[in-house]
């Protein structure tokens, strides 16, 4: 846990404080993102925590201990540190780079070797292949994986990360972000993550702190910043597409309608049609007894048909996993001109239904509302 209390930093001779009375608490195991335009004090604020920059006034505590009562060297060995430029030591092998803090702490060679291999595995690099390489033999993405591994070497409870993925190309950045979130889900470190990229902030942060001219402007869940920006600055910083950005935060599971209306393949066509007319349904999902999605039927298919629905069912090939994010789901709906998407699990069991009306409502202000109206399926099999 990190607690900042009226933290202020004034550089000698500067008229304006670089950090101006910032108070906030980062609970154990959370990623807190510091974001803001360049010069807003986000990096300074981060570097105050491990005393790379001396505090002017206020107090900071890490895991309940006031940092000013600790030796700065000891303090930094307890806090992982990752920077944008990676900063691997070029004259040391990957192993020795990762072993930086353990060596300072005087671990035995056997313990260090074991830990290095464990960490390489954690960041998805084969220890046999990478252990003895030098930094110049690594790609940018590999180097930053080592940078992260080095920061975690002595298993610190807390990590400071200054734009760790900022210098990495967009495709690899996504991969590294995902990998890091996966690692974090397991290790639950308390992390300060500095970035200037709002998309990264929304993706990585459980809590986002927006700074401007050294002052805390708004702190909260990413969703709150997007949905309820505190002022015009926040609104313009998060961007005019803030509503679309929220789609990245939400999963299909959060938006889908549960227990959608459906019929079973063994139901009689006449009965089903009767119900559909009565309830004004243009089409209906067809499932088997185990809730496995078989497809759909529309009124046109059933009209005059004698027998079971299963005989005339149309295949529904475009489905979505409940774990996908809503941006991807919406993109799929737009590109295939779909009014609804059926969410199914890996075995094809129906989990719920996502429709455009719900989606639009959800990304608007009232996102706690569930449900919505069915779309319409055309004869060509498209759902409008």
């Amino acid at each position, binding site marked *: 846990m990190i607690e900042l209390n009226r933290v202020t930093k004034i550089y000698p001779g500067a008229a304006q404080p670089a950090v101006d009375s910032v108070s906030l608490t980062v609970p154990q195991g959370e990623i807190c993102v510091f974001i803001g335009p360049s010069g807003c004090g986000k990096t300074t604020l981060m570097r105050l925590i491990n005393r790379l920059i001396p505090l002017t006034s206020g107090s900071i505590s890490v895991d309940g201990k006031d940092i000013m009562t600790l030796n700065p060297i000891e303090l930094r060995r307890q806090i992982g*540190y990752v920077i944008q430029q990676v900063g691997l*030591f070029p004259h040391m092998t990957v192993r020795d780079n990762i072993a930086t*803090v353990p060596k300072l702490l005087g671990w035995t060679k056997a313990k260090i070797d074991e830990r290095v291999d464990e960490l390489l595995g954690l960041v998805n690099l084969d220890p046999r292949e990478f252990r003895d390489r030098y930094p110049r033999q690594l790609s940018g993405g590999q180097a930053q994986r080592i940078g992260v591994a080095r920061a975690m070497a002595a298993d610190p409870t807390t990590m400071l990360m200054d734009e760790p993925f900022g210098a990495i190309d967009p495709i690899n950045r996504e991969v590294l972000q995902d990998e890091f979130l996966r690692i974090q889900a397991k290790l639950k470190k308390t992390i300060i993550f500095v970035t200037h990229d709002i998309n990264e902030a929304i993706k990585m942060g459980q809590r986002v702190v927006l700074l401007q001219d050294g002052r805390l402007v708004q702190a909260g869940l990413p969703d709150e910043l997007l949905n309820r920006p505190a002022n015009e600055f926040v609104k313009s910083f998060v961007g005019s597409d803030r509503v679309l950005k929220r789609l990245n935060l939400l999963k299909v599971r959060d938006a889908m309608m549960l227990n959608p209306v459906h019929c079973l393949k063994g139901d009689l066509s006449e009965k089903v049609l009767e119900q559909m007319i009565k309830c004004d349904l243009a089409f209906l999902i067809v499932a088997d007894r185990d809730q496995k999605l078989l497809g759909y039927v529309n009124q046109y298919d059933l009209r005059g048909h004698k027998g079971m629905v299963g005989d005339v069912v149309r295949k529904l090939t475009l489905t979505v996993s409940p774990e996908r994010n809503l941006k991807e789901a919406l993109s799929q709906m737009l590109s295939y001109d779909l009014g609804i998407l059926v969410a199914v699990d890996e075995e094809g069991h129906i989990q719920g239904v996502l429709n455009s009306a719900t989606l639009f409502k959800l990304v608007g202000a009232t996102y706690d509302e569930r449900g919505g109206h069915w779309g319409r399926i055309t004869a060509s099999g498209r759902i409008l």
Partner: protein
Amino acid sequence: MTTYDFIVRNWSELMHLAWQHTVFVSIALAIAIATGVPLGVYLTFNRRLADTVLYLAGIMMTVPSVALFGLMIPFLSVFGHGIGTVPAVIALVLYSQLPILRSTYAAIRSVDPAIIDAGLGNGMTRAQVLFKIQIPMSLGVIFSGVRVAVVMSIGIGAIAAYIGAGGLGQFIFNGITQTYDAMINAGAVAVSAMAILADFLFGRLEKTLVSKGLRRD
């Protein structure tokens, strides 16, 4: 008599002078490295002093070597060392300072600040950053300065014979006064050979001491 014949006939004398040469050049270099590298490192922490010191060392290089040997005679006579090995060593130390100082200073300063930040941020002390990161990273460049100093000192060392320090310069000066070409050539060839050999040996040493991670290929 050809140079070859001269060398063969005077082999033991040549070896004796080469040994003298090696001794005072080695002593001078040992002192120059032992003072120049730490001073160069220290100067990176004191920029204002750095400018002055590097400037003085630069001026030192412009003094012609013969003149320097001559200039020191009155000063060192006070201590009874006006001529001989002592002034030779002192002159060589002064000449070697600039390449060693300048390469050390430049190398330490050129270490990427982000790497130093990473070292400090991971809990190294300033001394650990210096000794475990900055100096090992600078070794290659420091070595290039030392190699310049080595080759230069062996060459300038020949002039030390002029003030009675002996060494291979003896052949050259005696050859000149006696207009004895083979003797001059023998001295010159031996000085060159020594410089080439020393440079080669320091090259090998550099390869073993400088991390593979810093090699450019």
